């Protein structure tokens, strides 16, 4: 079915309803009008780095200020975005960062086609844990999963504990794209989702000899356009 399926758990069952469209096979016949391709994205990272706020900013354009509300388990939401005029349905898993929810998070890693891995630029610890997260990802996620590293809370630069260069060099080491973001101001939030949506959509409908979509170049170009410089 899919390469690199995680070793744990029973084999992936076919899901009634949307099961058929979840895979990447749906792009096989580009000429007939298809239902919007469905892409699964998962938000990962330590507790309190702002995953839920990041998602809310993207979904509703709002920032949830006030007290911290820990996500319970994993949380599933949909959002339809347009990529080059084509509708793509993003199914987004927001996960709880706490240790006790790891097992349930692991169980859904392998369904995800893209992972947004967040740390908090004001927390050295959350950055230091990124390596552990990446190890886990390599263990449980699909081999060809799209990963993006995001340094969140870039708006609170006064409390910054992690330099942009450190984020960038870690990303380079693992060969994943990197950005600094702010769920509060909305900086780079939409870009992050759109970049992966574009990448995945491209993969889904890619013809064998078509040039590959370059997510790195795309992000760089988009950021240059918006005058932001927080990239490798």
């Amino acid at each position: 079915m899919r390469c690199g399926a995680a070793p744990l758990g029973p084999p992936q069952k076919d899901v009634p309803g949307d099961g058929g469209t979840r895979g990447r096979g749906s792009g096989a016949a580009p000429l007939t009008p298809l239902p919007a391709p469905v892409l699964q994205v998962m938000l990962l990272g330590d507790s309190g780095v702002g995953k839920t706020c990041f998602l809310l900013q993207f979904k509703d354009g709002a920032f949830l200020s006030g007290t911290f509300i820990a996500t319970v388990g994993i949380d599933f939401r949909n959002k339809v975005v347009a990529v080059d005029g084509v509708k793509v349905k993003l199914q987004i898993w927001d996960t709880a960062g706490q240790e006790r929810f790891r097992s349930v998070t692991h169980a859904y890693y392998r369904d995800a086609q893209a992972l947004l891995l967040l740390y908090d630029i004001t927390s050295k610890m959350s950055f230091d844990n990124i390596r552990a997260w990446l190890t886990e990802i390599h263990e449980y996620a699909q081999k060809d999963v799209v990963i993006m590293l995001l340094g969140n809370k870039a708006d609170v630069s006064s409390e910054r504990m992690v330099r942009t260069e450190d984020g960038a060099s870690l990303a380079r080491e693992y060969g994943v794209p990197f950005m600094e973001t702010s769920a509060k101001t909305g900086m780079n939030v939409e870009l992050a989702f759109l970049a992966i949506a574009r990448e995945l959509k491209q993969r889904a409908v890619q013809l064998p000899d078509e040039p590959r979509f370059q997510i790195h170049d795309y992000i760089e170009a988009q950021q240059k356009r918006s005058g932001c410089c927080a990239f490798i």
Partner: protein
Amino acid sequence: MAADVHKKKGWEVPNGSLAPGNGQHAERSESPTPGLAQGTEPGKGQSAGQEGAMFVHTRSYEDLTSPEDGGAVVRSPEERRGEPAEPTSMEQISKDFSELSTQLTGMALDLEEEMRQSQEGKLEPSPQATRHDSVLSGKEEEDVTMDTWRMHRKHVFVLSEAGKPVYSRYGSEEALSSTMGVMMALVSFLEAEKNAIRSIHADGYKVVFVRKSPLVLVAVARTRQSEQEIAHELLYIYYQILSLLTWTQLNHIFQQKQNYDLRRLLAGSERITDNLLDLMAHDPSFLMGAVRCLPLAASVRDAVSTSLQQAKAKSLVFSILLSGNQLVSLVRKKDQFLHPIDLHLLFNLISSSSSFREGEAWTPICLPKFNSSGFFHAHISYLEQEMDLCLLLVSTDREDFFTVSDCKRRFQERLRRRGVHHALQEALRTPFYSVAQVGIPDLRHFIYKSKSSGLFTSPEIEAPYVREEEKERLLGLYQYLHSRAHNSSRPLKNIYFTGPRENLLAWVTSAFELYICYSPLGTKAGAISAVNKLMKWIRKEEDRLFILTPQTY
């Protein structure tokens, strides 16, 4: 000390009525909600069909009218509080305890001083730990040396047998680590003598201990509740922790590492525990050990239940629809029963987080009374954003999110097809009924619990109980009556209570419990006829107030 404690692992406080047996973790609950389970009626205790039989067990009426019957008339708690409560023994006890703590730990004599010390000699929390607290719990930690901290009506502490803080309702656990050390010292000291500390009563405070290895739970309360009831609340906190970790995991962790810092695993759950404590302070469900239903026309409820029943999946064990903290419908797998305590924990989980409002959550949850050794996986979602209607689908399979999510879709579809959506919406607009509907002028409020079904009904709390303190005071009165009625050494069947601001009457039979609160100007005779009339009214309305025909898949 720790080693000493370790040796006695498994030794339990012999608290017969509250602590579930030692082996409870291994077995299914013994007292499920049979009404939801076996199809019995809420009023069934009076054997359905015989209207007159409703009062078969009511020696009570004679009891009520004859004041010379010992327990029938009791004094108000205020009065009781005033009386000297064996001062000598009390002093002796508190003296003993302070000596004992010094002896054991070399720490301060009294709590106050102890607290000050703990502040000064506070362990340097690592930057990581500080962060953990400020970010994860999201609450402003109180300064434990301040008077405001000490003035809280009820403190709750959870610690490990190594004396490590696990949870404190107010103030940060770090600042309280030496206080908790003293608590553990008290517990171990008495255990060394093959004894158990259950409570300390002094200076208007009750300090109640519940020992559930590997945890110790302590409450310091200024409330009127009995020791038994405070211990009952502590047990709820214990079950709450189990629901996050399972009994098996909790024990495994401490077997591996006795001085494990459990807060690491419980991170982010402080809000859930806080919420449970707040709920218990104003929701009679916990006191009653029963669940309240959303008042709903039987036809609508049946349609909802049938829709739930049809939207099943192999891994589903319970489908629960709830609104606020009231049950709308519950469908269960055949032969599987849900205990009210487990349902309360689910209610609490949902009411403690606004994060379920959108999207679909999928979380592991242990239902400790059902089976404390494993996790279920719960799918939690609101049907519509503006509607206070939450669907909870409890599955045995962690991998089954999409299947269960599809059950939700199917349920909504069926609901729409049956056209009960509008009726549901109407019912949600008035989630509580007014006591005026009963038509008894002096009646202010009541709680009626059907024992066989594990369900209770109660009107909205109205004037004069408007302010929060007044509401809590009313609940306090119910708590008081409840504790007298269920006193393990001297239970009472009927209590007639005359207070300065209201009169109350409690009536406990094998089939039901009834607590009524009415005007202070009412007479006892008036109260009795009110009970008669009220019981008839409940009978008439029972198909709206209770779930009479529980469904299975």
